[in-house]
């Protein structure tokens, strides 16, 4: 059976995770191509609807990557992002989508290694979880 290749959307803060991803490249570190990066001015810009739309449109997992706690360029955007992600978890469970598919992570711009490691581990975790149940249902519909 063909191995399931998840689609991961990573909302990356311009001031940390996006630069960390860049650094991972400069360091020639490999991370799975499954991770599709969307640069945002701050993780606090990421609203619940952005995450929901990513899942609705076919993402199997969503990462929200912000600065280390206390280091947000806009003071506390990363804290707000964590609150939103945490608040979204029970809503996802209500829909029947595993909360683990959406995760908040923190890193600094210099943590290229951490970005690559998180991208690898999260992709693996989502691969184990399998396809997003909403997407799987839609595929069954298309096939029928």
């Amino acid at each position: 059976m063909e191995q399931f290749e998840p689609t991961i959307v990573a909302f990356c803060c311009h001031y940390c995770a996006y630069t960390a991803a860049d650094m991972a490249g400069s360091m020639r570190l490999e991370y799975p191509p499954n991770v599709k990066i969307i640069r945002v001015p701050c993780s606090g810009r990421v609203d619940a609807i952005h995450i929901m739309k990513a899942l609705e449109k076919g993402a199997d997992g969503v990462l929200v990557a912000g600065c280390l706690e206390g280091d947000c360029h806009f003071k506390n955007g990363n804290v707000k992002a964590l609150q939103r992600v945490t608040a979204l978890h029970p809503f996802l469970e209500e829909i029947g989508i595993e909360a683990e598919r959406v995760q908040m992570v923190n890193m600094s711009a210099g943590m290229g290694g951490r970005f690559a490691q998180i991208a690898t581990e999260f992709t693996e975790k989502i691969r184990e979880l399998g396809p997003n149940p909403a997407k799987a249902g839609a595929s069954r519909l298309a096939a029928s």
Partner: protein
Amino acid sequence: MITAERKPLDEIMESIDGCGRILLVGCNECVTVCAAGGRKEVALLASALQMASMKKGRTLDIRELTLERQCDPEYVEELTPHIDQVDAVVSMACGCGVQEVARRFKKTHVYPALNTKFMGASEGPGIWAERCQGCGDCLLGLTGGICPIARCAKRLMNGPCGGSTNGKCEISNDVDCAWHLIWERMKELGIEDRYEDVIAAKDWRTGRGGGPRKILREDLV
């Protein structure tokens, strides 16, 4: 404002079972302020309903629309071009909005997506608390601006009761004793002497005791 909370998703899904085309209607007033039924919540619920349907191997045609005020006929009229093209309306307004849509569009199923809770005020970000029960005969002038009807569990007119301990109500340590608050406020205002004025038995006919109420302003009709 009127406060509300979203119903469990399963309940909403059950109400629209068999419907393929949904008009999801929010309201820009109270339910937007209490983050229950504004444009943002409409978008979130639409996405959630879509994904819940996709999980079952179906897709929904969901239209999203947020009216300025769902309890006013002028604004509800804006739904007219959409009504014939949907199987049901799901309203994210308070009960007043749901009923206004149902009254205007008699042949359309209208389902509530929210549970309307109470008339309240914000105590801080994300916290709303009951402040008024619309009794129709306000006595806040007698009680230092704190309502014993909305905020005392027993609606005592002359409190407190024996269940008040250290300023908290016996029903929960999270609930302030309204009459304790009234006493503290009267002290601040320097009108403690009025605390012992006996408030007469309330005539509840001005409230729900008199049946459904209506206001008629001749100058505006």
